[in-house]
């Protein structure tokens, strides 16, 4: 149990004790001789309630002292000097007076003084008292009337057993007449207090305080409804249908008491855990040290004043590129436009006015959906065979490790790329594997299959990672370790090589390749936008929605990734662009001496390199291009 829950329980005990004790004193005085035998329990209620209230008040004060910093003279002085201290004094005074008066039938002034002290305590401390003295007075009257009602019901409940039907009917009628005035006062004061504490606006009534208050009002309304039923239906029957009606009255009175107890519990909870400030002023937690002292609305890390830009540092770490975020942003924008232009050309060639219409037709074209998982696997195999026989046109060195295409193991599926590459064992005991996601195969578009085969398999990941593993020179760690910009960049570059050997002939497959490439281009814009250009999440979502086929949720996933791992999404596209740039540089410098096989061997021949080192390697190659090497791969040697 937390201290707060303990405080709420003590408060409930205090409320119940004070209401029953003070209320019983009032009820005894107001119902008078009509109670007859039923007056007997009154002193017990007065004494028991007062004792409970005293214990709860003192324990509550001790708990409050503890919560305020401990049992220290200055803290005690602060508490006693506050309205809480005044209320505590009144509670102790009232409890002592009522306890002393309980056993003496003639001590009416003493009892009334104790009762007044008890209810005055409610008027001096709490939410109502804190808002104004008038509200405090209303709260005191509200509680006084509620206490009278509750205690009268407790006495009436005893009377249902101990009084003969005639006397019970007389008592019930007398109580009913008084109750109209008493309960009307309680409801009127309560209603005014509600209006003072919670303004009649939608926002105000949506706060937890107001909703808990509504629960309390519901309990009170339930008790009122039961009371009305008892007064109008049961009391008239008392004399005619004696024992049955008495029993029924006793039950309804019990129900009223339970509902009032519910209202009391709700009040204790409400006043401990909630505050009307929830509406008037939002909690100022943001000012405190714990949660978000430097919190801000924008996504991602914020550069410290006068310090290095942490995002630029992330960009260097993730991409090994020395481009500035702003340059990457512009590069991304131009790539998005270029790819969009190529995609639009394909869509127009196939008779569609814009990409939206084309994308929608692709989605609903049964000819472009896979028939089965087996068909998907077969498609990958076919495309890889077509590529494999053409590899000697593109590479001098080819990997010894074989590549096999297998259906993805259950549990690994749902790959957005449609296929995942698993490298060969370094000792050659197991070939590289392209695992094809055959889960829900018939819902997969085959437009993405051909480029995925080249990207994930050959000449993409399998070729690069196998050559890396088979390199003789570097130490083992360099044969296994990876650099995302180099590896992802190579895969993205490699799928484009299909054009050069006469593959990706089908316009739908070309479109599928461009769709994937577009996603990487958008990431350049969105990641730098969010982290370096003050973009909002909505701006970034908008970009993905406009230029990709991602739905709203997928777009938010992309943004979450940008925020959680700044710059990580930049690696593939920056790596691809770097390799392309180096190729253009080599072609331009070497002219007719340029051999694409030797260039690729050079790119792959040292394993993953940071992009700057890769550029140095290519510059060295341009300065002194060695003659072509013979291939030692199982694909056979070639001549040129």
């Amino acid at each position: 149990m937390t201290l707060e829950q303990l405080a709420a329980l003590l408060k409930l005990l205090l409320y119940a004790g004070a209401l029953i004790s003070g209320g019983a004193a009032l009820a005894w005085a107001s119902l008078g001789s009509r109670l007859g035998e039923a007056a007997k329990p009154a002193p017990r209620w007065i004494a028991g309630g007062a004792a409970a209230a005293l214990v709860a008040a003192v324990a509550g004060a001790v708990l409050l002292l503890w919560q305020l910093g401990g049992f220290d003279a200055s803290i005690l002085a602060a508490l006693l000097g506050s309205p809480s201290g005044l209320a505590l004094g009144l509670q102790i005074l009232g409890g002592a007076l009522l306890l002393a008066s309980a056993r003496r039938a003639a001590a009416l002034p003493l009892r009334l003084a104790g009762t007044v002290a008890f209810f005055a305590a409610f008027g001096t401390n709490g939410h109502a008292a804190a808002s104004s003295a008038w509200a405090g007075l209303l709260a005191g009257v509200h509680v006084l009337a509620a206490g009278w009602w509750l205690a009268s019901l407790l006495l009436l409940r005893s009377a249902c057993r101990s009084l003969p039907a005639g006397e019970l009917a007389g008592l019930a009628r007398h109580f009913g007449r008084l109750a109209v005035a008493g309960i009307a006062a309680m409801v009127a004061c309560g209603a005014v207090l509600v209006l003072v504490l919670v303004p009649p606006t939608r926002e105000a009534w949506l706060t937890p305080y107001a909703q808990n208050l509504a629960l309390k009002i519901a309990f009170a309304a339930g008790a009122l409804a039961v009371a009305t039923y008892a007064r109008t239906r049961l009391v008239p029957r008392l004399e005619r249908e004696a024992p049955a009606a008495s029993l029924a009255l006793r039950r309804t009175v019990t129900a009223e008491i339970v509902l009032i107890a519910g209202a009391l519990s709700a009040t204790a909870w409400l006043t401990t855990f909630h505050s009307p400030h929830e509406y008037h002023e939002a909690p100022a937690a943001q000012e405190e040290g714990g949660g978000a002292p430097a919190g801000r609305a924008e996504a991602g890390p914020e550069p410290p004043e006068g310090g290095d830009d942490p995002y630029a540092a992330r960009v260097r770490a993730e991409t090994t590129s020395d481009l500035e975020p702003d340059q990457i942003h512009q590069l991304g924008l131009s790539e998005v436009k270029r790819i969009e232009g190529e995609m639009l050309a394909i869509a127009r060639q196939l008779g569609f006015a814009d990409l939206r219409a084309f994308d929608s037709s692709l989605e609903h074209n049964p000819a472009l959906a896979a028939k089965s998982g087996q068909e998907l696997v077969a498609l990958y195999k076919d495309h890889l065979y077509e590529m494999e026989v053409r590899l000697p046109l593109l590479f001098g060195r080819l990997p010894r490790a074989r590549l096999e295409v297998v259906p993805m193991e259950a549990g690994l599926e749902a790959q957005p790329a449609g296929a995942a590459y698993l490298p060969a064992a370094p000792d050659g005991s197991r070939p590289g594997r392209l695992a094809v996601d055959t889960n829900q195969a018939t819902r997969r578009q085959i437009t993405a299959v051909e480029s995925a085969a080249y990207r994930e398999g050959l000449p993409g990941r399998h070729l690069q990672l196998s050559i890396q593993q088979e390199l003789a020179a570097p130490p083992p760690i360099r044969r296994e370790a990876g650099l995302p910009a180099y590896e992802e960049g190579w895969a993205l570059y490699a799928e484009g090589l299909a054009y050069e050997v006469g593959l990706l002939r089908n316009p739908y497959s070309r479109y599928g390749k461009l769709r994937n490439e577009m996603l990487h281009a958008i990431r350049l814009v969105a990641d730098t936008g969010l982290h370096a250009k003050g973009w909002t999440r909505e701006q970034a979502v908008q970009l993905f929605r406009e230029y990709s086929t991602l739905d709203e949720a997928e777009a938010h996933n992309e943004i979450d990734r940008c925020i959680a791992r700044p710059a990580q999404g930049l690696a593939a596209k920056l790596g691809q662009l770097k390799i392309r740039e180096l190729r253009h540089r080599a072609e331009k410098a070497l002219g007719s001496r340029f051999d694409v096989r030797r260039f690729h061997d050079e790119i792959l021949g040292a394993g993953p390199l940071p992009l700057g080192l890769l550029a140095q390697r290519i510059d060295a190659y341009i300065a002194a291009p060695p003659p072509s090497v013979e291939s030692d791969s199982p694909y056979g040697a070639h001549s040129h």
Partner: protein
Amino acid sequence: MSPRRRLRAATAALLLAVLAPLAAFAHSALKRSDPPSGSVLKAPPPSVVLEFNEPARLTSVVAVGADQSERKLEFAPAGSATSFTVAAPALSAGRNELRWKALSKDGHPVSGTVVLVVEPNAAGR
């Protein structure tokens, strides 16, 4: 279970539901502090001001240093006010937490923490 017992059980369940934790509470609250919480300071501040959204009674301010040592701090004024000044908090280098406790206007205990970081070389340690 007899109908009466069932009724009692249902009543108990209803009361428990009412008493179940409903979370979130807000009474008086710290509006701001000077220096603001989260500040990184070149030198220990000569004083710290705590400002509340409504009159409250500050009852305790404890400084917790980077080494988890706790020190009670003196503050003024005593009694009800919206602004309190902790004179000469003598914060040490590194992270300092000022844990404050107060009695809010409506009688509730409220508490919070202001975090102030003093640059290590500045405190003369």
